[in-house]
């Protein structure tokens, strides 16, 4: 189903800087990269020598003849990427990992993005838009400067923004936006036998709804999320409480990206681990033990750049 993985030497076609911290890198892959939304590349400068040693896992922002990634400057590897100029050769390994699962045509997609985690969601939003589906995007960051590609996201979806300092959109967290949307969506869609039992919603008691009323397809939602672990943990919790399907794109450090270093374990609720590179990065959020992420020191680091 997925395209064959391969190691390519590709030159940087162009770099678009979004402030100092965020950059979009476009690579020149003449025969095209058949990556899907949610898949990722391992990216390393082909002339970096022995340091930084490891390639960096980066979600695809676009695919095809000019595949691109969004980076946030965090460590030495991403700093090098931020300073790269067109023509510089990169080693790209991919496409890797599991893409987003196919959106459910019966549910409206809500995309919840945090900072640099927007990349695989913008890819998804563009795919949805091409099929005539306008997703609801909820995008959060510390400030207006931490919302790279927000305008692009607004072009292909309905965008709502939250910033912690209130410099763009609502002041607060993106998870608060989600909570509000899920409350109204679930209130509208929850029929008899809803998961929370009889409740008063929108000024009516449940018994006032006709017994035959099933959730209209347009009221049902599903969530796709990518961002810092703490944000995704809250998104997963909000969805789980309401029985809303939630797919998360995991970010963890990894050395190989294709299943052999075993450096990217993510704890599961059922016990044990899944490896984000091959059993992810896109996973059903209900499977993940989000609490244990709090004990991992680097899980919030973008794409594992140490």
């Amino acid at each position, binding site marked *: 189903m997925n395209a*064959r*993985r*391969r*190691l390519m030497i590709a030159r940087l076609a162009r770099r678009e800087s979004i402030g100092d911290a965020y950059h979009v890198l476009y690579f020149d892959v003449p025969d095209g990269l058949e990556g899907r939304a949610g898949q990722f590349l*391992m990216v*390393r400068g082909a002339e970096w020598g*022995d*340091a*930084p*040693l*490891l*390639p960096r896992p980066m979600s695809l922002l676009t695919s095809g003849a000019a595949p691109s990634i969004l980076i946030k400057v965090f460590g030495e590897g991403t700093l090098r990427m931020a300073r790269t100029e067109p023509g510089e050769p990169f*080693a790209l*390994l991919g496409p890797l990992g599991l893409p987003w699962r196919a959106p459910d045509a019966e549910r409206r997609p809500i995309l919840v993005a945090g900072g640099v985690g927007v990349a695989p969601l913008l890819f998804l939003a563009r795919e949805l838009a091409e099929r005539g589906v306008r997703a609801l995007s909820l995008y959060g960051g510390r400030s207006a400067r931490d919302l790279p590609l927000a305008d692009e996201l607004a072009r292909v979806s309905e965008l709502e923004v939250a910033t912690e300092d209130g410099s763009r959109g609502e002041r607060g967290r993106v998870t608060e936006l989600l909570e509000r949307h899920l409350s109204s969506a679930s209130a509208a869609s929850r029929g008899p036998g809803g998961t929370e039992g009889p409740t008063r919603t929108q000024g009516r008691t449940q018994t006032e709804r006709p017994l035959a009323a099933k959730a209209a397809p347009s009221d049902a939602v599903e969530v796709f999320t990518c961002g810092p672990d703490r944000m995704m943990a809250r998104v997963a919790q909000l969805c789980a409480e309401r029985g809303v399907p939630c797919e998360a794109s995991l970010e*963890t*450090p*990894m*050395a*190989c990206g*294709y*299943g*052999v*270093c*075993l*450096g*990217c*374990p*993510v*704890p599961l609720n059922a016990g*044990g*681990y899944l490896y984000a590179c091959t059993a992810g990065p896109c996973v059903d959020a209900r499977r993940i033990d989000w609490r*244990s992420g709090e*004990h*991992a*020191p*680097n*899980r919030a680091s973008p794409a594992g750049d*140490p």
Partner: protein
Amino acid sequence: MSADAVKIGSLELKNPVLTASGTFGYGLEYDDFFDVARLGGICTKGLSRHPRAGNPPERICETPAGMLNAIGLANVGVEAFCRDKLPTLRARGVTVVANIFASTVEDFVVIAERLDAENGVHAIELNVSCPNVTHGGIEFGKDPTLAAQVTAAVRRATRLPLWVKMSPEAGDIAEVARACEASGADAVTAINTIRGMALDVEGMKMRLANRTGGMSGPALRPIALRIVWELAEAVSIPVIGIGGIYTARDALEFLLAGASAIQVGTANFSDPCAALRVADGIHDFCARHALAPADLIGRARRAASPA
């Protein structure tokens, strides 16, 4: 015997390049990349008697020209390996070196006996040098008496060629290697990782959940090369060189120092075809010099003045 082949005791390898345990999975992850049977061999992920989930995250972090890992020997266990992995490797003609790990001599013996009952395992590599588990591993590899005990016990349990992977942290690594040789080892592999540490300064804490991890990568190479040189002097069984080999040039250094074969490890992470690249590069070098890899083994020692 083809021109690129080398012999490790009775075992002939198609060429002197193997992949290092823990960096190449079970050799079945490479279908998209290349035919693994073209390599001299693969060393499997360390196999234990029972499956192991491994350590919690973080398990890896990057260091200058290297990395630390504390995977904790996550593996499917010897039974699942024999049932689910080995038949495919055998059918493909892959030269398989089963790397095994245990915390007791008895478990080492049980695993070796299990592998001995299978076709398609060409050698066993004893991991007596893993720095990332609480019991076993490195304890066996640091002490010549314990290393000899486990080697002798496994020797009695199998007819397969037996390699022992050396810890660079043994006080006298040559003494450990000699003890293994005297106890029936057919080769020694040098070296495993060296324990290191890294801290997250902003977070003011350890980077690895295990606190320490085994350091690998190019930063390790000069140390590994020195140890291979010393061991080639200390024992008369073959030495298999490993430590930060990324290119054919790196590999040739190890052969010239006295290694009979080499293993490519961390390099596999950034290039799944790294070991094949190294094997091709050695082939080209040999063609250019009208030599076979076997002619290179220890060749730099001839020119060396007595230490």
